[in-house]
């Protein structure tokens, strides 16, 4: 085995192979950083070139692209609360609050170091397990898949102090949206309203960009603030120092990374689990086992380590079933297997026997590209972190342009832009209502897989699956335990949670009403579909209707009573948690962090809207931001990306009085126009995303 391991490495030592690896890594990092341009899109674009490459060149470029993308996807998650890839969603939970505290450099360093460290741990596991992959494929059956999806949803739903009913509604909404489009088993079009552009369903990219990027930009435009709620110049540590601290802290708390890496690698071994589930479960387990688990989601380094430790490791793990059995764990591996097939190889036992060094070459590509991308990330981190100091109105046009392009790129259809608009508005409206975006996201992503496995379980065992699948039963018991303990915790903190909810009682009630009506209509429509295509959506819709009606009927008097206690002036109850405070540090943590916290807390206190007048003004600015967002989307749809987006950007910059000097405004307008045009050009030309507008 040692000789195969070494030969696998030395086989890569040719200039074209190394250059393709570097090229793949850089391309991967670029697309990882750009929300909407997923690694799958790039791998698909690489696929036609595979015909002209050798096997080693192919694995170098394809796997390096994947390795580069996953750390890079966390960059925007940390800096802009916008995951570059859906898998990086857990990174936003602690990474972004750290950036808000002015700790973006440290967060990026933790992310890069954890990604690399986790990836290398996974490589060690890979060496041990690659020859044992066969039996692993028989462990997971449909009941286990169904159970692990439920466990993933339960784990992530516990992030933050959100009432169970709201988590429930959020998750069910995500599931309901996931059923829109063609039923993957029967092909029946569900909830598409006859629109062919909805046949492929609602992508997680427009959803994530809408509820994260758009919501964040509207908020930042409204407040005129930057991501960092602190004045970066007042921080004691510059970003370079933060990067060093981040690296040191990750090494000091390596066990958080190791735990996540082991979990993610093992989950990666299971074909079909997918990176999204692996990341959420790794983060959820980290939350349950860490001393500061209760503070996960508020910007604790351990949370970020738990999220990022699985980032690359799950990809290394998923290489094992892909190579040894020809079974992919996610779409990235599906395309990789396709590339090997194009080259005349047969991923599976034949490949393991016929080319025993090839799997190790694959592992080395992942290890080397993962290391290099993280080193590059660490070098760039101090500069990247400065993005968090840019004020909202200046960042606005670039992020809106990226979100619009990314939503289109998701399925190469204008429906992505319409969905972005819908989810952007939804995100802004429900932003302060206390619903769980995490639960909705995981519902949206895993709904299809859940639906498939419920049907398969039914087909295999019917209700008797309970007695047939001990492993599934274990997962179910853990999920039940977690729900019960969450219920206890919620009852214990009921008053505190209730206080956080009273900000917008009327809006909440209206939202519940809309959800109830939507769910009922959804059920009625679902009843019209053939049983196999309609029964799961109907059940989910009915549960959502019941949960919404519950909140509507029983909670209304309670919330109205609390509303009466809201003060006339000053911040509304619960509003002071807009920027989470640094959680209590574990013993032994450096004292210098406390100065950062002190600065942050002071700045936060200074910059929150103090009066109703300020809040009203912020609301007006947010409304204008939404209109500008509509403008960019409309410009793109009517005039095409390369004209519409730069044109609206130019108008935006020229009429933006946030820059008092006309000359500076013109400079900004020209710069922003050129940059957004370049982005649009790159999307349309490089990625074949042709759309020239409706006129």
């Amino acid at each position: 085995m040692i000789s195969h391991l070494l030969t696998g490495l030395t086989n890569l030592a040719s200039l074209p192979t190394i250059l393709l690896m570097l090229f793949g890594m850089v391309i991967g990092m670029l697309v990882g950083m750009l929300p909407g341009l997923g690694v799958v899109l790039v791998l698909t674009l690489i696929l036609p070139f595979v015909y002209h490459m050798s096997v080693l060149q192919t694995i170098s470029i394809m796997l390096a692209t994947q390795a580069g993308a996953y750390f890079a996807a966390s960059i925007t998650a940390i800096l802009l609360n916008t995951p570059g890839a859906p898998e990086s969603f857990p990174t936003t939970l602690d990474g972004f609050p750290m950036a808000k505290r002015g700790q973006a450099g440290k967060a990026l360093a933790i992310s890069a170091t954890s990604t690399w460290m986790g990836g290398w741990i996974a490589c060690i596991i890979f060496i041990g397990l690659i020859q044992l992959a066969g039996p692993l494929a028989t462990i997971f059956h449909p009941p286990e898949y169904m159970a692990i999806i439920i466990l993933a949803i339960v784990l992530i739903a516990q992030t933050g102090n959100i009432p169970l009913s709201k988590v429930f509604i959020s998750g069910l909404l995500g599931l309901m949206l996931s059923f829109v489009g063609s039923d993957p088993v029967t092909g029946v079009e569900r909830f598409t309203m006859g629109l062919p552009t909805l046949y492929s369903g609602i992508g997680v990219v427009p959803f994530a960009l809408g509820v994260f990027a758009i919501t964040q930009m509207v908020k930042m435009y409204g407040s005129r603030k930057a991501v960092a709620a602190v004045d970066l110049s007042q921080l004691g540590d510059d970003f370079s120092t933060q990067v060093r601290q981040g690296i040191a802290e990750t090494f000091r708390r390596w066990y958080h990374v190791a735990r996540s890496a082991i979990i993610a690698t093992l989950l990666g071994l299971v074909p079909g689990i997918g990176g999204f589930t692996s990341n959420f479960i790794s983060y959820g387990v980290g939350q349950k086992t860490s001393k500061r688990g209760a503070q996960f989601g508020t910007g604790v380094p351990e949370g970020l380590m738990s999220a990022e430790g699985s980032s690359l490791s799950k990809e290394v793990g998923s290489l094992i079933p892909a190579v040894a059995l020809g079974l992919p764990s996610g779409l990235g591996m599906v395309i990789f297997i396709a590339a090997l097939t194009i080259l005349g190889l047969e991923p599976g036992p034949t490949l393991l026997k016929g080319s025993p060094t090839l799997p190790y070459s694959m592992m080395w590509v992942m290890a080397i590209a993962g290391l290099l991308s993280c080193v590059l990330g660490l070098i760039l981190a101090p500069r990247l972190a400065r993005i968090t100091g840019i004020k909202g109105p200046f960042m606005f046009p670039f992020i809106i342009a990226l979100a619009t392009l990314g939503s289109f790129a998701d399925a190469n259809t204008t429906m992505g832009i319409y969905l972005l608009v819908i989810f952007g508005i939804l995100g802004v409206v429900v932003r302060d209502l206390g619903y769980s975006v995490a639960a909705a996201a995981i519902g949206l992503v895993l709904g299809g897989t859940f639906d498939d496995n419920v049907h398969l379980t039914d087909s295999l065992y019917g209700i008797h699956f309970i007695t047939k699948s001990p492993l599934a039963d274990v997962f179910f018991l853990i999920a039940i335990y977690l729900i019960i303990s969450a219920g206890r915790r919620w009852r214990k903190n009921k008053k505190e949670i209730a206080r956080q909810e009273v900000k917008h009682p009327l809006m909440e009630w209206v939202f519940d009403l809309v959800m109830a009506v939507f769910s009922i209509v959804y059920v009625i429509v679902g009843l019209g579909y053939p049983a196999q295509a309609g029964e799961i959506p109907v059940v989910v819709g009915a549960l959502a209707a019941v949960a919404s009606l519950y909140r509507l009927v029983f909670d209304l008097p309670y919330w109205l009573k609390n509303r009466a206690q809201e003060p006339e002036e000053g911040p509304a109850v619960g509003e002071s948690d807009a920027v989470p405070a640094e959680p209590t540090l574990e013993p032994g943590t450096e004292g210098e962090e406390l100065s950062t916290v002190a600065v942050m807390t002071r700045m936060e206190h200074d910059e929150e809207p103090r009066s109703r007048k300020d809040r009203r003004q912020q609301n007006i600015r947010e409304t204008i931001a939404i209109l500008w967002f509509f403008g960019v989307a409309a410009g793109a749809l009517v005039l095409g990306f390369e004209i519409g987006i730069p044109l609206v950007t130019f108008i935006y910059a020229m009429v933006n009085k946030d820059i008092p000097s006309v000359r500076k405004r013109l400079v900004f307008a020209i710069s922003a126009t050129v940059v957004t045009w370049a982005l649009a050009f790159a999307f349309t030309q490089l990625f074949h995303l042709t759309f020239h507008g409706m006129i």
Partner: protein
Amino acid sequence: MINLGRRNAMSKSRLKASALGVAVASAGMLLAACGSSSSSSTASNSNSGSSSTTAATASAAAYFKGKTITLIAPDNPGGDFDLYARIIAPALGKYLGATVNVENVNGGGTIVGTNQMAASAPNGLTISVVNTGGDIASLIEKQPGQSFNLQKLSWIGQAGTSPSVFVTSPNSGVTKFSQLLSIKTPIKVVDVRNGTGDMFNRVVLGAFNIPHTFVTGFTSVSALKQGFLAGDGQYAFENMPPFLSMLDGGQARALLVTSQPTLPKLVKAAGSAVTLQQALSSTTLSSAQSAAIKEAEALSVLDYDFAGPPGIPAAQLSVLRTAFQKALADPSTIAQANKESEPLGFVSGSSVASQVDSAISAGSAIATYVNG
């Protein structure tokens, strides 16, 4: 860090200025939403009314130059339909003077991708690989999901057909198809609902009276392979190429092939499996049973057909058909197909259209089994 300048309260005039600018653009968005269906018809209208005259064909040929064509593969990358699409796409693009991008739309067997193709604008710029025989079987099964009319699709031609294989897990203890004919306990078969494999499953197992239960709900052949390896079912019926690695690696054993393969890798993988014809001749079946099997065989030949949505103008369709035929004869296409063990065999678009008409209008001998 960029200095934002003054942070005073926003004046009414500023509000108006900003609001005016965006209101104009927002109105445009509404306009865009209303007019979303108009763009596609322009291209086809510009070439509509063309006949089979040389001038019209030349005009249609010019129409494709520099265009981007979306070729939908109705399965995942690496699936059979995807591989055919990717083998042919470069040469098809070369002969059309266009860029042909392969887009994977997986689900419902292959129905989701075909639905999407059929709903696209009939301008020749969106085409797909179609599992015609499987779709006809689904139609006979009255399976929900098909939102297209096979007889109205614009058929471009057939790229080839590959034999299907009935496989079993090595630990099933079954080494020959004939053993199944006397089996009493129902065998468990993994099955992708819709498609050729599903049709063969139902017709062959039904006609040969082999007791069986289906484990259905797999969304793709890849998912089916996973279920097969995990032991969710010990039997499967699918096209041969996706099962090559499992057959070569000893994870699956071929019991029956629908026709004798010709490509060396497929011949090797088939091993000592009997052909459907051999099984038929060595077993006494009723005329209805034999007719059903022969009909299933005939339908399975309608495979890997290329088609566009209904209503592609005749001249454009003619250009697509000619380019498709040239693409299949291109040496690079043949070499790549051999490399991937995907058999090629050209059938013209008009012939495919006739075969589809005949298959659908003919009486259905397989109905007894597929509807069961």
